[in-house]
């Protein structure tokens, strides 16, 4: 249960994770707010399913004590590389930003249960904001060679800071940017636009990540169109595997613990 709706644990399977020490291939600015870090890992690039994440951090004595959870933004099994895109918000992400080519990273992944697009689905709507978009780009990667139509509403402060536009377009998605700068990201405006566009021919699945208000909207639209709605959520984590119990998705029912984001998520079914 979150403010945005009821979460259901999905029974999706997961791929076997690995822990590796890998080297940074690229770590560069994407915009004034975000950076892209590419690391080499044949195993993770091959195994990562859409919507999975890694736990990662610099190695060494003065490195942060905890690894940070980061969505797999894109993976390229042929090149054996994985990209993550991150905002620099605090101590851990500042330490990531300071890494340069060749530096060693400790990475564990791929982790969690990702997005599953069901058999027979023809239209998928992605609704994401900020770094939340990074949890959904791999869905578009997987759907690129299929006939499934992907529409992505990408929300951000301004046009430059909207993540994922290029990747999604390259994957053949129809991209709608909405921004705070021109007012188009207001939830009512997004709702109106989507209702107009999809009421006659709605998507069978809606995926969302990165904003509580957009999650609420996705849940509402899911109910309106009878579309299966999935959300990727965040929680503070230590292990990423399910044994530290740091990442419960809420406060439980008083007797049993709430689901764990790293083990039971990060992708959950969403209902109003």
């Amino acid at each position, binding site marked *: 249960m979150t403010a945005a709706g009821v979460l259901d644990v999905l029974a999706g399977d997961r791929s*076997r*994770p*690995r*822990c590796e020490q890998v080297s940074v291939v690229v770590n560069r600015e994407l915009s004034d707010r975000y950076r892209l870090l590419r690391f080499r890992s044949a195993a993770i690039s091959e195994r990562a399913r859409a919507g999975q994440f890694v*736990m990662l*951090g610099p*190695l060494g004595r003065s*490195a*942060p*004590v*905890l*690894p940070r959870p980061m969505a797999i933004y894109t993976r390229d099994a042929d090149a054996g590389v994985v990209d993550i895109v991150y905002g620099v918000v605090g*101590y*851990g992400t500042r330490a990531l930003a300071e890494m340069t080519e060749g530096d060693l990273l*400790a990475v*564990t992944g791929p982790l969690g249960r990702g997005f599953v697009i069901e058999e027979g689905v023809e239209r998928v709507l992605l609704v994401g904001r900020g770094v939340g978009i990074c949890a959904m780009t791999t869905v578009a990667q997987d759907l690129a060679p299929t006939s499934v139509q992907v529409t992505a509403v990408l929300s951000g402060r301004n046009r430059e800071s909207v993540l994922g536009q290029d990747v999604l377009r390259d994957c053949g998605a129809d991209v709608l940017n909405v921004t705070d700068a021109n007012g188009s990201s207001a939830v009512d405006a997004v709702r109106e636009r989507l209702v107009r566009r999809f009421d006659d021919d709605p998507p069978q699945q809606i995926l969302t990540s990165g904003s509580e208000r957009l999650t609420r909207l996705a849940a509402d639209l899911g109910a309106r169109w009878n579309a299966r709605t999935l959300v990727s959520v965040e*929680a*503070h*984590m*230590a*292990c990423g*595997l*399910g*044994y*530290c*119990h*740091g*990442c*419960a*998705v*809420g*406060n*439980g*029912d*008083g*007797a*049993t*613990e*709430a689901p764990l984001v790293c*083990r039971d998520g990060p992708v959950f079914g969403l209902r109003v």
Partner: protein
Amino acid sequence: MELGDLELANPVMPASGCFGPELAELTPVDTLGAVVTKTVFAQSRPGNRTHRITEVPGGMLNSVGIPSRGTTVFRDSGLGGYAGLGAPVVISIGGLSAQEYWQVVDELGACEHAAVEVNVSCPNLEHGGATLDTDLDAMTHVVSGVVARSTKPVLVKLSPQLHGMAAAARAAQDAGATAVTVCNSFPAMAVNANSRASELGNGTGGLSGPSVKPLALRLVWTAAQAVDIPVVGCGGIGSADDVAEFLIAGATAVQVGTATFAQPDVMPRIIGELPALTERLGAERIADLIGTLTIRSEDWQ
């Protein structure tokens, strides 16, 4: 290495709550001296409010609050997946009253385990919510009851008592403990000035990781001088050198907690490095390091 009847192939085991069977997918956990479970309670418990984890300089805070599915579910699920990992299983037990601790031991019964570790850092509801080992009579009562009920070695995991460690370790020994584990995480908090709120949903939490190592070393040293039973050192260990420091200060074995989060394979790595380290330190066997600390005394030149 021996802790009573518990024989360890090497001195390295995980700290309770910082390990799980999930790690077997990533690293050879059968190389560990033992595995230690997350603390098990008699009844199901939800754990604390979120956020439960944050990082602070040189360490982390947790207020997970020990969620548990209860002893019978744990026992009947192959010890929550710990059975069959190929290392002796130490079951950490907790309770809010003496009866609750004893109920866990009774319900575990003869299920396959090598030892129990009594987590006495739980709030004791019979004594106004203070941790059990701040009231040595209450701790003695609980531990002697566990010793009477269990056929296995009983480790007592003490909380970081900055002043009363010697007395607490002695009380555990007198109550029949096989060994003491020193120590649990340090009560602490983190404040966000912008929101004027605590970082953790529980307000306070336990500090662990590199920054507690000097504190834990001193407590291990204090405990080792106070008792004849073995001391298991715990607090900020993340390398083979750290292990050596704890053994020299008086520990017979060690537990690794927080370090596993960033490097899931840190314990097998450390174990692999122990032979070379032993040789570098001029010892024949790693056990020869135990309690060899001298206090530096240099004359002014």
